[in-house]
């Protein structure tokens, strides 16, 4: 509506500068088009068209500054400009709709990609759990206790992996990309997010040490703690599971302007160039495990990373992945610092 007001103001301005009626009608069609382009739908465009016709009549045709519909041939002129402007409005509205449909299609395709990847990823561990437990139940007498233990351990590992996957999916459902994301933002200490993530990570991988460094001063970020911790845990797990040959994993925090930068590094095999291009969009999940595309396990990182990306973006941050010059991979993300309102 603001735009249609602007268009009318423009018309007035044109009127004052003494341009004649034919130029004015061009300007008014432009106004109608712009109105339709930047508002949502026909109503505003058509309203602007009718308003425009009335204004042209009022301002630019004799008698000036008075309505007069009785001029010779005038009804035809009115009908004509009205038709032209409505058609313009319709066309531009259609462009807007096409844009929206396109954006929805992209979102839909991403969702479909994710769903396909998830179903594929869920099937493998479920099959192995079912197989292992069935084997134990049906062959109880024939199995040695080590064999039984090994089968159950496999089932437990798969169940743990499934839980992590479901946690990731739960987080994504909490973030609706279009609307205002359902984040529970609080002033969180970056060091607390880091230390809690690392201690959760250590519970799952007791053998692995993570080198942690945080700034000397307290860094408060505006974050949904559970979601950001999940990002950090995902990155640590990727480094642990996919960076082949890695002997050390490090996690550091620093500040850069209005953001805290969280960085996970490893000294493993690095990320293949091909994978780097699509690393956050979830489309490369079929590559299977590994920063390289060797595909030797169902524990792939595609879903985890696209979830991370979604979470970081919802916080207003950015995410990056690259290979370090000295070898190994580096994935970093930013989260805005906490700002006290009104201070």
């Amino acid at each position, binding site marked *: 509506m603001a735009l249609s007001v602007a268009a009318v103001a423009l018309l007035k301005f044109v009127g004052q500068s003494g341009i004649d009626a034919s130029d004015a009608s061009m300007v008014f069609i432009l106004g109608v088009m712009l109105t339709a382009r930047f508002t949502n739908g026909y109503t505003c465009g058509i309203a602007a068209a009718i308003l425009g016709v009335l204004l042209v009549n009022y301002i630019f045709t004799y008698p000036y500054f008075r309505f007069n519909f009785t001029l010779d041939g005038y009804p035809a002129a009115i009908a004509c400009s009205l038709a032209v402007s409505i058609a313009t409005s319709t066309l531009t509205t259609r462009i807007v709709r096409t844009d929206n449909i396109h954006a929805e299609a992209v979102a839909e395709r991403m969702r479909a990609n994710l769903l396909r990847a998830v179903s594929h990823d869920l099937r493998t561990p479920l099959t192995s759990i079912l197989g292992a437990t069935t084997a134990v139940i049906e062959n109880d007498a024939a199995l040695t206790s080590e064999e039984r233990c090994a089968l159950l351990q496999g089932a437990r590992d798969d169940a743990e992996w499934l839980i992590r996957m479901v946690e990731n999916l739960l987080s994504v459902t909490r973030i609706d990309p279009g609307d205002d994301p359902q984040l529970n933002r609080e002033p*969180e200490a970056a060091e607390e997010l880091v230390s809690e993530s690392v201690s959760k990570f250590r519970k799952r991988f007791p053998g692995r040490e993570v080198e942690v460094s*945080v700034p000397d001063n307290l860094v408060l970020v505006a974050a949904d703690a559970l979601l950001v911790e999940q990002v950090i845990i995902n990155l640590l797990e990727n480094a642990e599971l996919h960076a082949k040959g890695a002997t050390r994993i490090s996690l550091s925090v620093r500040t850069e302007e209005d953001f805290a930068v969280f960085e996970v590094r490893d000294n493993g095999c690095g990320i293949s160039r091909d994978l780097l291009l699509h690393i956050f969009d979830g489309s490369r999940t079929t590559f299977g495990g590994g920063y390289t595309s060797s595909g030797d396990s169902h524990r792939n990182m595609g879903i985890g990373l696209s979830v991370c990306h979604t979470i970081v973006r919802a916080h207003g941050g950015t995410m990056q992945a690259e290979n370090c010059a000295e070898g190994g991979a580096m994935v970093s993300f930013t989260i805005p610092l906490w700002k006290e309102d009104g201070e």
Partner: protein
Amino acid sequence: MNGYTVLVVEDEQGIAGFMTAILKANEYKTLLAKNGAEALMYATSYCPDLIILDLGLPDMDGLDIIRSIRTWSQTPIIVVSARTHERDKVEALDLGADDYVTKPFGSSELLARVRTAFRHSALRNTSSGGDISMFRTGELTVDFAKRRAYIGDTDVGLTQNEFRIVSLLARYAGRVLTYDYMITNIWGPNVKGDNRILRVHMANIRRKIEKNPGAPEYIFTEAGVGYRMTEGDRS
């Protein structure tokens, strides 16, 4: 048998089965209630030593069960919560639950919580009660009488409020204390809701007692809930 009776309140059979199995394997007697009404009935008629309570029950709100039990009993209550009920567990702790585990949890985690809860209830019931003069865990020593904390032999130089925070956590070591509980305890009820002041103090404490504030050994954060100090020895 160690003689303790644990009441498990859980409507999902798989989870109830696994919890009672590991409790029995560790020589606890177990009772199983499948809904809120049974839970209240068993709690009053058997007077269990500990209650493990799932907050998502079919017939009533788990928080109401805590309220009801707390009117007449100090039996330790460990709350089992699902991720979709994040706020419920904080409310449960503020209502008087002693601890919580979040689904999915492993058997070692559950048993650790159960042991901590028993230890605290035992302390509460002895004549000396919570009256301890010294707390030690790792290198950290908290001297309640002198109001000082040491790493090894060195006084870490906590301020008044910092010491009050550390001693509060040490007194309840092993248990999670909610932000609101701690803030009310240190600064009084009027500061409630402002977690920032606590965060800033915790950051200072961490820099005084931890070797690496990014990888603490003594005080742990539980996102959205509060802080927990590692278990230690009291004297």
